């Protein structure tokens, strides 16, 4: 009893031990949760993003060199995931995209096994071959040369 009075902290050893265990447990749970959510997000992002590049396939279905320096490009998505065309390059120059279905958008989303048409402004010359390249959001590219009529 006297000892307890002389050393009042001695009795609190058990409380401190439980408290520290709970604290460590909490830290571990929080750290684990953060790590799990990071890994889960990373895996999810990878599978739907860069990892899915492998599943992307786009075909230049038709390229129509039209009057007033317009080129109408019809694309078919024969891949296993939807694609979003964010840039069109013609002869290595970036061309602004006009989405026929939704003129407010500056990209063209193409669901699987669907066709979409992109209109770009480009000063094409008759009889010349022009190199067309599409770039998707995931970084997939497809390119081909087309001869203007």
């Amino acid at each position: 009893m006297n000892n307890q009075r002389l050393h009042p902290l001695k009795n609190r050893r058990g409380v401190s031990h439980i408290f520290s265990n709970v604290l460590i447990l909490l830290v571990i749970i929080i750290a684990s949760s953060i790590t799990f959510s990071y890994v889960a997000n990373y895996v999810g992002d990878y599978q739907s993003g860069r990892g899915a590049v492998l599943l992307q396939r786009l075909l230049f279905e038709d390229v129509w060199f039209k009057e007033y320096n317009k080129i109408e490009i019809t694309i078919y998505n024969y891949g296993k995931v939807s694609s979003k065309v964010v840039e069109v390059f013609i002869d290595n120059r970036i061309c602004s995209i006009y989405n026929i279905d939704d003129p407010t958008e500056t990209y063209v989303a193409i669901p699987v096994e669907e066709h979409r048409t992109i209109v770009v402004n480009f000063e094409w010359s008759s009889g010349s071959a022009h190199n067309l390249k599409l770039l998707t959001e995931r970084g997939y590219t497809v390119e081909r040369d087309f001869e203007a009529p």
Partner: protein
Amino acid sequence: MTLKLHRSEKGIGTVVASIMFLLITILFIGGTFLWQSTNEAHMNAFEKDRMDEGLSVEASYKYNDATGFYDTQLKMKNTGPIDIQIIQAWITDVDNNDHQHINCYYAIPVDSFEDLAEMGVLIDSLEHPFDIETTSYFFKVITERGNVASSRLMPRAAFLSNWPAVIVPEASFVRRDGSGGLIQLVIYNRLDNPIHLALIVASRLEHGSEHSELIEVDMIVAGGKQEVLLEYGDEGQIYMPGEIVFIELADTDGIVVSSYFFTCQESL
């Protein structure tokens, strides 16, 4: 002993949790690798199927006994080892630069063929009237796996001719022009490679005279057309209306690549 055991179990929960945590993380990473390799295998198999697809498309004319006109048809034949699904058909009016398409669905089993039933709809979608006599068309169909098969439809005269270059009679003439003469030729290249014309020989069969002239014609691309216009003044070659003029065309090597009999037309 019991006490010791209790003491030693104190850290087991943490160890188990750590192992579980590690396992789950490994499972995530392993799952991703598995997913990746499964996708790779799946896409490799898909690409192989795509490469294996064999589809031949042939656009042609077929004489219709009932109507007395030529019908246009597009025959699609599966020449590969796997079934094919057609999803889209396109027509291009080469001369008027017009592209139109329709959605169509044809499952073509191995070694079988289909005629495009929507040919009329496809042709009617063109901005300019369909003209089999003078205009060139290009047809193509798209498969579900992303392959394209195509066929040219040349003007009817070219389709029925065996010459490498064909004078399209409906768009060509020999005409008396005032006190001179005029020859207009529209020439279609039937070959799959360019033709370079260099010489025109016009023979007046009834007079027994022959007139040849070197001409400058731009190279005619495969499946392309070129117009040649030759005008003669008083001092030049004068054709009489009604007389037969035999036109021959030769390439740069002097090889005759086309010929046609014209009846000289009246002056306009």
